[in-house]
């Protein structure tokens, strides 16, 4: 079967390097680990891969309390106990109380699915180690019913991490890895064009110039990212702000209009204000 190749979608711009990483992972059937600055579209990648290749998507969102077992299945002992109290006939079949997790659901899909394991670094430090065999062999054992669950079609697994914890080597060896870097101005223009096709050229240029200058401000606690830029531009369009208001002119240098969409904490706002004040005096 000639596999479909992923080359982005009409609303998601991918660089060539990301494309080849995704396609390699799909071809060989290995999980793809995605890292990168927040707001560079890590989670969205899985959704878009599923859309582009027309595959069902299973989203396993990892939290700090997540256990690897929850992705496989959970045995609901409490409801079985309750059913036994009520004399329910279901109680004789243990299978009724085994609740499949996301990984199991993905293993069971009729066509090759996309499985997103989102923010794997949020979980306990041993979490990735508990999934080694499952990701490698794409199978696991259900002890309660003594059956082996095997993937009907090796899912396309996309794992995202925000680098809060370092992942174990054994786990990394089984994955392909790609670091989404922050888009350069050219890619950024393409991304914005995808989201705001009717945006005026001069507004776009002014907004981008302002945005990249802001990102370069030394000492920012949280540098604005792509998703924040998109929100900002959406706001600029909605408020009908002209491009001229964005250009940095010495006599009215200050924070860009609607800066709240870009700067998310008051120290950063304060810092930018101060820098602008200094700049103005120098001129």
């Amino acid at each position, binding site marked *: 079967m000639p596999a479909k*190749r992923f080359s982005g979608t009409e609303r998601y711009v991918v660089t*060539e*390097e990301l494309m*080849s*990483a995704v*396609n*390699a*992972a799909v*071809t*060989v059937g*290995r999980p*793809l*680990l995605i*890292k990168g600055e927040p707001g560079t579209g890590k989670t969205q990648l899985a959704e878009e891969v599923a859309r582009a290749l027309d595959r069902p998507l299973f989203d396993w969102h990892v939290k700090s309390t997540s256990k690897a077992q929850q992705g496989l299945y959970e045995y609901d*002992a*409490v409801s079985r*106990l*309750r059913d036994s*109290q009520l004399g329910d006939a279901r109680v004789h079949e243990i299978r009724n109380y085994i609740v499949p997790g996301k990984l199991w659901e993905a293993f069971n899909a009729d066509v090759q699915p996309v499985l997103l394991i989102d923010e794997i670094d949020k979980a306990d*430090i041993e979490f990735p180690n508990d999934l080694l065999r499952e990701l490698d062999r794409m199978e696991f054992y259900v002890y309660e019913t003594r059956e082996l669950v095997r993937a009907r079609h090796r899912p396309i697994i996309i794992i995202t991490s925000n680098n*809060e*914890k*370092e*992942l*174990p080597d054994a786990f*990394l*060896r089984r*994955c*392909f*890895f*790609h*670091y989404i*870097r922050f888009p350069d101005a050219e890619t950024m223009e393409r991304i914005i064009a995808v989201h705001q096709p009717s945006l005026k050229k001069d507004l776009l240029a002014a907004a981008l110039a302002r945005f990249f200058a802001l990102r370069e401000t030394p000492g920012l606690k949280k540098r604005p990212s792509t998703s924040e830029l998109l929100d900002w531009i959406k706001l600029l369009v909605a408020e009908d702000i002209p491009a001229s208001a964005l250009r940095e002119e010495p006599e009215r240098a200050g924070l860009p209009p609607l800066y709240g969409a870009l700067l998310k904490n008051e120290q950063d706002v304060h810092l930018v204000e101060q820098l602008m004040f200094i700049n103005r005096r120098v001129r």
Partner: protein
Amino acid sequence: MMVGFFFALRAGGVMTSLTEMLALFEVLRKDPEAQSAEQFYFLARTCLVKDERLYDRFDRVFAEYFRGAERAFERLMVGVPEEWLRALGERLLSAEEMRQVQALGGWDKLLETLRQRLADQRERHQGGSKWIGTEGTSPFGAQGYNPEGVRIGQERSRHRRAVKVWDRRDFRNLDDRLELGTRNFQLALRRLRRFAREGAAEELDLEHTIDATARNAGLLDLKLVAERRNAARVLLLLDVGGSMDDHVRLSEELFSAARSEFRQLRHFYFHNFIYERLWRDNQRRHLEIVPTQELIRTYGPEYRVILIGDASMSPYEILQSGGSIEHWNEEAGSVWMQRLAAHFPHLVWLNPEPASRWESTASIRLTRELVGGRMFPLTLAGLNLAIAALRRRGGVADISH
């Protein structure tokens, strides 16, 4: 050739494994798109490198390895896609030569010239480990680096395309030569965990439920308990400034590992030694002062105290009142250290200085005595020992005399 690349990567500090290499072969075999040099670079990076901090090292090895060694190139030519050769050709020949070659009759001739060029290159640059060319005199000028790694002579955009990805070295500042790594620290620190049940009762207590149900003549009686949480309380005291500047990264790493491991972590800074005051924020050290006495009052003896400092100073700074180099201290540092050690039975000192130097430095010997011998080197092994020491009480008696 690929085997050589594999070892070159490992020699260059990218610790890739055999299984990862095999995965790359599998991709190259199955992936119809893996045709150009750039694609090969992307795929190799995806398969072999698992940390963006290693991207830069990978780029350097890649550039070095595929840049020139004649043998590699000769083997390359067996069954290698034409585009790859062209990419190499573009890198090694000047625009004019390319035009000439094309006029002379295509790639056969070009390969011949390339071969000569490579032999030539070996002779001319044999002694050096880096290619440093000046523009105009050598066709390799465009690929040269100055010592800071800044490109020179890069006006031909088409040529740039062939080499740009790995020669650009975009990931240079992500490389930080981690030796210990936060993860290792974290794994060591987690042994300090003390689980306790605190907060709202949300988890089913199976044993109690069974017991209560049995007492209830078989009717279900659910019992809940609070979730187990890591209740270890840790106080981190860090020496900053002065001689500690050399060890900043190591302390930072430990700090960040501790921070993500313990919810109940408090940290304070000191300079050289513990006196009557500490501070919370290193940047505002003169504004936000916390008296050491307050620390002792606020945090109970159940706190585990980890001091990090090189303890390298003049012994006067420890033994004399007024010995501090920063301010006038009424009481000597040793008095404060004893108070601290008496209040916190679980206390260790981690020293980034190599242990071999401890005996010969008077202040380190003194400090070590003051903490009851519980000084450990700031290495993974040392941290493990320190954690073991934190888990048991002790050393109090030696200090309080």
